[in-house]
């Protein structure tokens, strides 16, 4: 039986568990994964994905593709918030525009993980250094967002809110999830370099368990996302449209950049997914701290309530067919 890529994606356990979580909210089941259990899984996923990425990077070495791809990734996370900001300013003040735009410039690790699982199920290869891109794209958008506030905000911001560059950098670079991802990457790299038996001993934890833990975590993400969705109604149709249009738009730019970089289909999909995904963790946390004028319900309900489910369920297979269509085209 031939089934469409979207259906095939939907029928993978992680996506099914995500839907189960979402449906439980719809049906008002009292299914609940109490705090801090979700945190256990999110920490685990970051640690495992970083560790595995570090091993892969050590194994493959720094190929020619690594530097251009990582640079392009950082560039994208600087450019996307600027575009987003310009679009959002039609409707929102500087604070909300900057905060939302920053979220879309940054990334969602779980979306990335889902894309990896999708590629594995499709048996399409990808490289470990893409985890490096994941880690590097989390922070720059925060900096852009905060700089947008710093320079575009009305001059009468209360004194105490004048941000210092050092605080901005600290908030964006030493965020717990960025830190854990990057340092696990380094641990993976060092382990692969000097202690290969350590890789084997970690494998059951970081490797074999990963898929199941992803499912469990997505069950919770389904609950959390579905709880957010209704709040979107208050956000208005402009923002709802933005939450779908923006990832598609970013994916479109991303796929051309990926083509320009001559990335293979696996890496290209991951690159596109990084562009298309939006942050509901690091960026909201930073924005709440530094731009309290922005409404957290705006940047969370869009990214978590709409963009995240869209990417997980429909986006990834759509981006895959985008990659399959655009990448093989004759040179630009």
């Amino acid at each position, binding site marked *: 039986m031939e089934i469409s890529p979207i259906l095939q994606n939907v029928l993978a356990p992680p996506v099914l568990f995500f839907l189960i979580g979402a449906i439980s909210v719809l049906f008002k089941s009292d299914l609940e994964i109490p*705090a801090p259990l979700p945190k256990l899984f999110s920490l685990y996923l970051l640690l495992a994905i970083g560790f595995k990425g570090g091993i892969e990077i050590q194994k493959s070495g720094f190929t020619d593709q690594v530097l251009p791809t990582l640079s392009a990734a950082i560039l994208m996370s600087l450019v996307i918030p600027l575009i987003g900001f310009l679009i959002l300013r039609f409707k929102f003040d500087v604070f909300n525009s900057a905060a939302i735009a920053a979220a879309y410039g940054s990334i969602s690790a779980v979306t990335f993980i889902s894309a990896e699982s999708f590629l594995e199920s499709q048996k399409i290869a990808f490289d470990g250094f893409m985890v490096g891109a994941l880690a590097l794209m989390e922070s720059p958008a925060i900096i852009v967002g905060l700089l947008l506030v710093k320079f575009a905000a009305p001059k009468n911001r209360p004194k*105490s809110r004048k941000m210092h560059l050092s605080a901005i950098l600290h908030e964006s670079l030493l965020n*717990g*999830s960025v830190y854990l991802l990057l340092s696990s990457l380094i641990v993976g790299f060092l382990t692969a370099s000097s202690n290969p038996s350590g890789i084997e001993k970690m494998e059951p934890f970081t490797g074999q368990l990963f898929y199941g833990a992803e499912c469990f975590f997505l069950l919770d993400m389904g609950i959390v996302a579905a709880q957010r969705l209704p709040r979107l109604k208050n956000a208005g149709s402009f923002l709802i449209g933005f939450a779908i249009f923006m990832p598609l738009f970013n994916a479109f730019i991303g796929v051309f950049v990926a083509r320009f970089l001559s990335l293979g289909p696996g890496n290209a999909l991951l690159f596109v997914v990084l562009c298309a995904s939006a942050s509901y*963790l*690091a960026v909201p*946390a930073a924005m709440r701290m530094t731009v*309290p004028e922005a409404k*957290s319900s705006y940047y969370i309900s869009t990214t978590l309530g709409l963009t995240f489910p869209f990417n997980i369920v429909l986006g990834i297979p759509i981006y895959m067919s985008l990659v399959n269509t655009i990448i093989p085209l004759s040179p630009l």
Partner: protein
Amino acid sequence: MKRLDLIFSERELDAIIKTLEKANVPGYTVMKHATGRGPERVVTEDMEFTGLGANAHVIVFCEQELIDKMRDNIREDLSYYGGVAYISEATPL
């Protein structure tokens, strides 16, 4: 003796504790993982998960004069990210 109840984002906890320590309060108690709604914001449980942090509830039993000393600092701490502060009477057992 007075009882001071402070409720605010966990993210501000360090700042508030610094303020309390500077005023030399005899002690304080912190309860984390509180949620709620204020005039500005809804704080739900999954805020913790998204890294936004839930609220902290801090109780301080101390003399009125200490409260007077801290009032401005606490107000400033709370004015920025929100939160509430209330005083009531309390008698040591």
